[in-house]
């Protein structure tokens, strides 16, 4: 057994600490990192809002800094990261929000000069799996993707509903989806999603079936390092998995391999799939980062966040083989108690 004192220690910044009912992946990523047998970590949280629960989970997050919203652009983010770097000497940043990835990808060279590693897809890779391009990507690479239409104006909703039929799935540019059974519901969803995430909103053909997700990690050369498929057992009204179970299905692993080989994906990803009653696998979305349930990969024997750290550090990481099938996660709500002074501290000074 290796003593933890003999292991290397890395300072790693992680974003998406919003472990709420529509959770970001940050807390799950941190849990997985803390269980690595290869290194120990000091975790720096990167937050956007003062009530992200991860900020107050001191057993997981050593210190948190607020960072500017993605809309502020890369220059504002860089300025903040330089400030953080002067105090924390980060080895690595793992950003976990779709919306923040373009800024971090653009800044990767400057961050490298500061001594901060990242392990991210390229902007081109980010683009090909975008919801707006996914169908074309599927056609090129032999993946079944439901028909989708981009909606730029409210009066386009009716036309899309007529073309795709009801129910229709109305999706935000970055997050959220609503299954609309009528034109009125679709129009309401359009306005809500436009207000939350901007235009375009996406209307997508509804596919009935079982929701299966795959958490994966690509090494950037086309090699799949890890893939763990999970079936959602309990789904919240926001469409999030509240419980799930790992599956054994070579077809799912082959799909992940196919995606990574086609894109030479670099970093974590999630394939959101729907298995139709006919057994066909539809690719509903491809998320360019680890999912919120990624801790299950560590629990099943393929610690994807820890493997990403090793890849980012330039180590050669062999593809994982095998994982525990039938391993389940059940998310739970827990009232975290803190003092208002902590809330004041992060709100007023942007650090805790």
């Amino acid at each position, binding site marked *: 057994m290796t003593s933890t004192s003999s292991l290397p220690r890395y300072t790693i910044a992680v974003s998406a600490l919003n472990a709420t009912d529509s959770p970001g992946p940050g807390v799950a990523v941190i849990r997985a990192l803390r269980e690595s047998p290869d290194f120990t970590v000091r975790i720096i949280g990167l937050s956007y809002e003062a009530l992200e629960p991860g900020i107050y989970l001191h057993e997981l997050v050593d210190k948190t800094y607020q960072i500017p919203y993605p809309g502020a652009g890369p220059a504002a983010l860089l300025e903040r990261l330089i400030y953080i770097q002067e105090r924390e000497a980060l080895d690595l940043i793992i950003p976990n929000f779709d919306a923040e990835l373009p800024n971090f990808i653009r800044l990767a060279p400057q961050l490298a000069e500061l001594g901060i590693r990242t392990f991210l897809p390229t902007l081109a890779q980010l683009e090909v799996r975008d919801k707006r391009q996914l169908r074309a990507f599927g056609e090129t690479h032999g993946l079944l993707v439901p028909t989708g239409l981009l909606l730029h104006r409210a009066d386009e909703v009716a036309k899309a509903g007529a073309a795709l039929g009801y129910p229709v799935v109305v999706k935000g540019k970055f997050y959220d989806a609503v299954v609309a059974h009528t034109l009125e519901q679709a129009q309401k969803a359009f306005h809500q999603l436009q207000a939350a995430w901007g235009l375009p909103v996406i209307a997508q053909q509804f596919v009935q079936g*079982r929701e299966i997700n795959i958490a994966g990690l690509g090494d950037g050369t086309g090699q799949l390092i890890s893939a763990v498929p999970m*079936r959602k*057992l309990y789904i919240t009204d926001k469409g999030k998995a509240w419980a*799930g*179970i*790992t*599956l*054994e*299905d070579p077809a799912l692993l082959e799909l992940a391999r196919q995606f990574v080989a086609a894109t030479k994906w670099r970093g974590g990803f999630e394939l959101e799939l729907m298995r139709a009653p006919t057994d066909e696998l539809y690719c509903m979305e491809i998320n360019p980062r680890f999912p919120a349930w990624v801790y299950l990969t560590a629990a099943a024997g393929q610690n994807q966040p820890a493997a990403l750290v090793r890849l980012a550090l330039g180590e050669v990481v062999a593809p994982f083989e095998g994982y525990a*099938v*039938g391993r389940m996660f059940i998310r739970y709500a827990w009232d975290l108690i803190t003092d208002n002074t902590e809330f004041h501290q992060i709100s007023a000074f942007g650090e805790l």
Partner: protein
Amino acid sequence: MRLKKNIATSETGFVFNPATGDSFAANGLAAEIVELLKQDLPEAAIKAHLLARYEVEPTRLEKDWDDLVAQLHSHNLLD
């Protein structure tokens, strides 16, 4: 009739399909039959075993057998 190779059974009588993530609660007799199917015993041998072990009419066994097979089929547990 063959049970899928990767079907798992537990001592509590649950049958687990790792390809779909489905778990099914089986009663004692169904669990016993699934266990025998896992051992690749032929249908005739399993039925003979059941007739010898339980007080059951052959016609009743045939009916219950067909019901169980239909359920195993519908739950995607057979090859």
